[in-house]
């Protein structure tokens, strides 16, 4: 589409959508991040495609069970540091209507988008539709873990829908895959688009065996058992098939010499065809090393120089609620979102990294609303056995706080260290904080809707910003 042309249908839907968003925010019903998209969609179903083609540097799409919000925020920060104007569904509203709303929000009433590159975080189920509409230049596939299966059906269903859309991509598209995930490699093995492989070479961070939460222990192609030369996180690692001989392909971008500094930050080296690059990452945990590697690979493929990439990753601050540090009264609270077994395992790994045990009082908040997954059985795939040792006390709350408390008991945590609190989050927060000694640190680990509710309560107390203001 020509930038100067005027499309009345596009303009009307943009204006209507913007009005809806403003109205929602004015009446105080929240951020209004998805409803405007519904309105715009109905008025002009071709809107996303029209706006996408206006972007001078094209658009990129980020998908995967874990890390997509953090990774797309890292990418957006890097592109912005590269002096590009970024259009991004930054709040993490990642279904088609959320993406439409975010694009509309950054478009003039005349229908001209105010940006030159698009960063789109895509929900797993929405990825095929978003790719069709946006026709991105680069697609990043981070990982596929067992998530909220009651929402998506089984992992196979998502994998099949991704495989189908990847087959339709033209040769000009670049697909960046985390090659440590055998499923993503199998899905992209014979596509026309260019494939770039990323992964870890990190002897110092190996797991001894597959965690219970891990999904795919069998070869996606022949069904034989998978072996690992090195296993890093859930089922991610340097894999090979014991049957057909498939193995992790050579890496175009590899992260090595990874040094995790507790719950603070991470140092690592990224090697590509041009050489080795020292990178510091402003967020902790091995999972964020994966996110940073992915973000760096995307930016590099988009043509951004390493002297822009590295400082941006070092300065990176996490997305709301993912990892957030909050000072409350005289207490230091670290809040980390937990939304599925793999993510939860990695958070526990990070919190116990220094001493091998949980050092601070910790409150776990588990809800079972749609966005959390209505099935709380995923808690049984998290290795809470890590918490059995040590003397950090554990508090539970949320709609399914009782399930959480029971889970801890069966993980071998002595009942004297388990404190079930009221399911009402704000009251539970007060009771928890009262138990944290003056000047001490504490952890809060909420599921998704528990995190939103807790943040709202903290925002009402003036402690954190409301997320659509970030």
């Amino acid at each position: 589409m020509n930038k100067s042309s005027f499309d009345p249908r596009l303009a009307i839907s943009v204006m209507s959508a913007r009005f809806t968003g403003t109205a929602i925010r004015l009446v105080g019903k929240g951020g209004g991040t998805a409803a405007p998209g519904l309105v715009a969609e109905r008025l002009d179903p071709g809107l996303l495609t029209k706006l996408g083609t206006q972007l001078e540097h094209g658009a990129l799409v980020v998908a995967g069970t874990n890390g997509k919000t953090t990774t797309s925020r890292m990418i957006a920060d890097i592109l912005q540091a590269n002096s590009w104007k970024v259009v991004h569904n930054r709040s993490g509203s990642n279904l088609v209507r959320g993406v439409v709303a975010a694009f509309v929000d950054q478009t003039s009433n005349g229908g001209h988008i105010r940006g030159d590159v698009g960063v789109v975080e895509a929900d797993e189920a929405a990825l095929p539709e978003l790719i069709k509409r946006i026709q991105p230049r680069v697609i990043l596939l981070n990982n596929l873990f067992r998530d909220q299966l009651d929402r998506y059906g089984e992992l196979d269903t998502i994998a099949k829908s991704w495989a189908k859309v990847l087959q339709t991509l033209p040769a000009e598209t670049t697909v960046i895959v985390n090659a440590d995930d055998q499923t993503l490699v199998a899905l992209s093995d014979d596509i026309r688009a260019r494939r770039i492989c990323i992964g870890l070479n990190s002897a110092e961070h190996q797991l001894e065996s597959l965690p219970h939460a891990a999904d795919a222990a069998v070869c996606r192609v022949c069904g034989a058992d998978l072996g690992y030369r090195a296993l890093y996180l859930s089922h991610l690692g340097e894999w090979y098939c014991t049957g057909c001989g498939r193995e992790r392909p050579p890496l175009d971008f590899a992260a090595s010499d990874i040094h995790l500094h507790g719950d603070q930050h991470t140092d690592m080296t990224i090697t590509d065809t041009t050489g080795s690059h020292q990178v510091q990452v402003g967020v902790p945990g091995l999972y964020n090393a994966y996110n940073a590697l992915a973000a760096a690979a995307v930016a590099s493929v988009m043509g951004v120089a390493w002297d822009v990439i590295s400082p941006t990753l070092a300065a990176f601050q996490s997305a709301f609620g993912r990892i957030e540090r909050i000072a409350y009264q005289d207490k230091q609270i670290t809040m980390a979102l937990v939304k599925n077994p793999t993510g939860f395992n990695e958070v526990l790994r990070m919190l116990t990294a220094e001493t091998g045990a949980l050092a601070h009082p910790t409150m776990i908040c588990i809800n079972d609303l749609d966005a959390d997954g209505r099935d709380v059985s995923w808690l049984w795939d998290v290795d809470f056995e890590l918490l059995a040792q040590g003397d950090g006390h554990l508090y539970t709350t949320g709609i399914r706080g009782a399930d959480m408390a029971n889970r801890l008991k069966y993980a071998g945590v002595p009942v004297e260290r388990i404190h079930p609190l009221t399911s009402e989050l704000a009251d539970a927060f007060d009771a928890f904080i009262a138990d944290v000694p003056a000047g001490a640190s504490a952890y809060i680990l909420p599921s998704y809707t528990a995190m939103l509710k807790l943040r709202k309560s903290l925002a009402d107390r003036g402690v954190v910003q409301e997320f659509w203001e970030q």
Partner: protein
Amino acid sequence: MTDLRLVIGWLYGSKMNIYGDRGNVVALQQRARWRGIDAEVREIGMGEAIPDDIDIFFWGGGQDQEQVAVAKDIAGAKGDAIKAAVENGAALLSICGGYQLLGHGYQPHDGEMLPGIGVFDAMSVAGPTRFIGNVSIESPTFGSLVGFENHSGLTTLQGETTPLGKVLHGHGNNGTDGTEGAIYMNAIGCYLHGALLPKNPHLTDWLLAAGLHHRYGQEINLEGLDDTLEYQAHENALTRT
């Protein structure tokens, strides 16, 4: 009697373990341990024979890809060994995919029928919709049981196999006849994920007692435990619809 022990056989633990089903093995093992009973867990994987000293079998659910491979593996001697153990009084809990393959068979949407081993007089076929949500049932043997179902297979019981209970909330075996699960001798099959046993400790203890009876040939009283957290989780789950 001192130094009691039990052997738990976990069928296809690495291939069929979905929706937290491993929590059932954890519950059996912990509740035995808390009473000073040594409970050894043995995983029985693909190509591995059924040991002849299993007191309690557990078989969880799996994704489609895994279920096809497992159905092939269980046919023949392996299935016969499980059937013989159940006839001999061994306890068994199976959920979802495991439950289906313990009947006469499972007919998927596409592809050939997966034959089962016929412990339960039951037949399962893939249905048009997926039943997803919290379930509560009333069982004549166990009283209230709570779990979470997530299946498209429809199971119908026949002959000597009786339902585990009556559905109070949710869909159960097939969404039409109001039944959920199956029970035959000391073998139970059902669609209750959750995990099931940790928040239904009365069912866990029944399986442990049956397992001990199988090993020692006599009734052995289980020491009572403090189940406050377990029943808080049970009651809490009953409020979720």
